């Protein structure tokens, strides 16, 4: 083994107040543990001087402040090795001096100690919800990390996009409820205990809502109605892009959140499940000119933020500021960040919050060929990662279907959500739209060659109603958020099934259950990549709240008692996912063909109405059936007939003739357990000529 002490740079060259130093390496940025010392490297294009501030863990006052000698600066990077630090007890930050000229974009303030944007862990919020010391002038401090996790032979799973079934979830909400019965509720460790549940459910990818360090106390306040503390609960406001949220780790108080999250990823991978992170690169936790100075504002305001000609903050994010994503410097920090998560945490993909912002130039105009999106698409480390855009922003840019994709990017398909919701609730004029959505939205992804895997199909996500609430509320009920019900979307395409909110009325309950199953049947038989929202498989409610971003209470927490109370719904979803898995026809990465491609003379997809081969595309049509034909996994002929009756009256659907016998797999009009039969146990249809679909129901019938 080479002896590192034989290297020349093992020995210091300078000394400052008893601390031994030498000139550092500009790359990599951040704090890197070397043999004998720590390399600190930080960038600013407009600062005039820089000081490294070191603390002993938790101490209010610095242990030492070491100004970078000018000879330690290379270009705009200050870099220095400090020897003999106890890597576990040191906390660090920087002071930057430079002009304070807001009209010019500069807001340097040497009285502030700044968090390193490359910090690998951040202290200050180690225990979720523990009241912070509000007088602390430097609350979010950088810490050092050992990057030697033992991954054994794990690496990102690289599942083909068309095989994915995504489960969007919030780490804390998933196991915080007492009914989760885990040792460490609301943490990564808690999630570890629920891996068997996820595997049994049948999903193969989880998408974690933000897990980068954020401050749950950002803009925290008391609810005027309930008095409870309202938090930045969801975490869409980043403090540290390179650091896992300490408060999500059972071991966060000991600074071991990196190991804990890595262990979760490794164990989830063992269950065949991928991990996608929801990343928020559109803005930071610093807000506008009235917000706190945490990091970027004090390091290089003009570089990191989109500024108006007067030096104010553009607000395309709706959160006060906008990260200047297509500035070359910001592009490289985003790239460095994602590479770090892919390489060091084995993350399988990323979902970009308000991603349309990532395609704007430094003055806010949309770019035809945004350098950041292109760099991400062609990056060698990210080459196999899933890249998913929320293809709109709060500045009015809506790019579903037109997001610059470079053959890589997928999108949350907001049109899928809206069209399917409206069809299911019985709106007229949507039969054609439903046909398009079932095919993987060729209107959006066909002309440009992107195909169905560009379409993340979803009915619900963290933004908006849960699936049960979608069929329990006509209106949002966000009073608990403390904004007099003004926040959250008003355009939900929801229907309360006759009573607003929870009810003991059995017919209403049964109808809601049926609507959920009908909607999910559409989702799981559509081409594209289906995404479920945590708890919808067990009938979770948020009591009509469609924007529960601030509530650390049972509104958000997943109540695991529902797995018992709604056992039939959970069983339905588990079997529905198995049906999707059993039929490759539903998961092709190409849009289907109308003319050929099926078994013998059958087209790959054909549409039908109550009469076979005669779909009703009229304005008043609320019924549609499609026939998928091709070959299944064993290369046997496959015929899959899927019919939806969104009308309030039942209807007879005559079945197309096939050279096989029809067997019923799903009938959402039937009560459990006749609503769904496991793959291989489908029931022979006694009358092969047709089926009766109850009001607001769907059937999935297979030929064999």
């Amino acid at each position, binding site marked *: 083994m080479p002896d590192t002490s034989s290297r020349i740079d093992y020995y210091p060259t300078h000394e400052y107040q008893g601390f031994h130093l030498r000139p550092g390496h500009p790359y990599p940025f951040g704090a890197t543990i070397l043999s004998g010392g720590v390399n600190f490297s930080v960038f600013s294009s407009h600062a005039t001087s820089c000081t490294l501030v070191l603390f002993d863990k938790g101490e209010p006052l610095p242990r030492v402040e070491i100004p970078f000698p000018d000879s330690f600066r290379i270009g705009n990077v200050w870099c220095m090795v400090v020897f003999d630090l106890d*890597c576990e007890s040191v906390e660090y930050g920087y002071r930057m001096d430079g002009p304070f000229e807001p009209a010019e974009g500069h807001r340097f303030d040497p009285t502030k100690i700044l968090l390193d944007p490359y910090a690998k862990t951040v202290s200050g919020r180690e225990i979720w919800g523990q009241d912070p010391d509000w007088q602390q002038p430097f609350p979010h401090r950088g810490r050092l990390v*050992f990057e030697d996790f033992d991954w054994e032979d794990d690496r990102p799973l690289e599942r083909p996009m068309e095989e994915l079934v995504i489960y969007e979830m919030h780490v804390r909400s998933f196991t915080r409820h007492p009914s989760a019965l885990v040792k460490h509720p609301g943490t990564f460790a808690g999630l570890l205990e629920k891996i068997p549940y996820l595997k049994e459910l049948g999903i193969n990818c989880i998408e974690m809502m933000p897990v980068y360090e954020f401050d749950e106390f950002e803009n925290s306040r008391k609810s005027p109605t309930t008095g409870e503390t309202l938090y930045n609960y969801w975490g869409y406001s980043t403090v540290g892009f390179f650091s896992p949220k300490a408060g999500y780790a059972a071991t966060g108080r000991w600074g071991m959140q990196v190991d804990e999250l890595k262990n979760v990823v490794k164990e989830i991978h063992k269950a065949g499940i991928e991990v996608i992170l929801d990343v928020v690169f559109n803005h930071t936790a610093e807000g506008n000119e009235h917000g706190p100075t945490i990091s970027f504002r004090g390091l290089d305001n003009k570089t990191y933020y989109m500024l108006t000609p007067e030096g104010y903050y553009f607000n395309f994010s709706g959160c006060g500021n906008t990260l200047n994503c297509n500035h070359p410097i910001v592009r490289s920090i985003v790239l460095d960040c994602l590479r770090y998560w892919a390489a060091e945490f084995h993350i399988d993909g990323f979902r970009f919050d308000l991603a349309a912002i990532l395609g704007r130039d430094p003055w806010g105009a949309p770019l035809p060929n945004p350098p950041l999106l292109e760099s991400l698409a062609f990056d060698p480390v990210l080459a196999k990662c899933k890249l998913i855009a929320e293809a709109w922003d709060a500045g009015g840019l809506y790019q579903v279907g037109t997001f610059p994709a470079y053959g890589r990017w997928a999108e949350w398909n907001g049109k899928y959500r809206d069209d399917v919701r409206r069809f299911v609730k019985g709106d007229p004029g949507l039969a054609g739209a439903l046909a398009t959505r079932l095919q993987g939205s060729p209107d959006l992804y066909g002309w440009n060659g992107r195909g169905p895997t560009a379409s993340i199909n979803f009915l619900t996500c963290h933004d908006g109603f849960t699936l049960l609430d979608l069929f329990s509320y006509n209106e949002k009920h966000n009073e608990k958020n403390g904004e007099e019900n003004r926040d959250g979307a008003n355009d939900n395409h929801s229907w309360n099934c006759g009573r607003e909110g929870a009810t003991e009325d059995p017919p209403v309950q049964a109808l809601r259950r049926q609507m959920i199953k009908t909607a999910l049947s559409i989702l799981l038989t559509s081409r594209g990549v289906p995404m479920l929202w945590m708890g919808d498989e067990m009938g979770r409610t948020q009591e009509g709240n469609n924007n529960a971003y601030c509530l650390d209470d049972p509104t958000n927490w997943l109540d695991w008692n529902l797995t018992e109370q709604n056992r039939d719904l959970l069983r339905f979803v588990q079997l529905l996912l198995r049906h999707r898995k059993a039929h490759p026809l539903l998961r092709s990465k190409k849009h289907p063909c109308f003319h050929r491609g099926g078994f013998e003379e059958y087209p790959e997809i054909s549409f039908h109405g109550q009469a076979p081969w005669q779909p009703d595309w009229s304005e008043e049509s609320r019924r549609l059936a499609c026939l998928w034909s091709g070959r299944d996994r064993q290369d046997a002929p496959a015929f899959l007939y899927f019919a939806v009756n969104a009308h309030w009256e039942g209807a007879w659907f005559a079945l197309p003739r096939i050279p096989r016998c029809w067997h019923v797999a799903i009938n959402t009009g039937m009560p459990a357990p006749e609503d769904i039969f496991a793959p291989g146990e489908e029931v022979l249809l006694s009358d092969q000529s047709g089926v009766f679909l109850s009001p607001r129901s769907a059937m999935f019938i297979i030929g064999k």
Partner: protein
Amino acid sequence: MEIQVQAQGSLTVVVLTGEIDGKTAPEVQSRLLPLAENGRKLVLDMQKVTFLSSAGLRVLFLLNRAASSGSGKIFLTGLVPELRDTMSVTGFLKCFQLFDSQEQAVEALR
């Protein structure tokens, strides 16, 4: 940090007392790494270890690697529940063979 080393037949039993963190880990490493590397079975009695930091976990892991790269092996005994839990959620626990007590380990490995 106190480190007591005693040979028991083919085994080396090490009784550790105190906290293993960034400050004490280098000492543990310099005392025990030569033992781990010489191919002996090393029983680490952890009963009196009250805290394991990130650096502490890494020393144990390093010793394990060093031992298993030869013919040696590391066994942990008497881990208090808190440490066991920390090791479990960070993925370190399954790298080690555990015994409830030093006596059990000595009996089983004799």
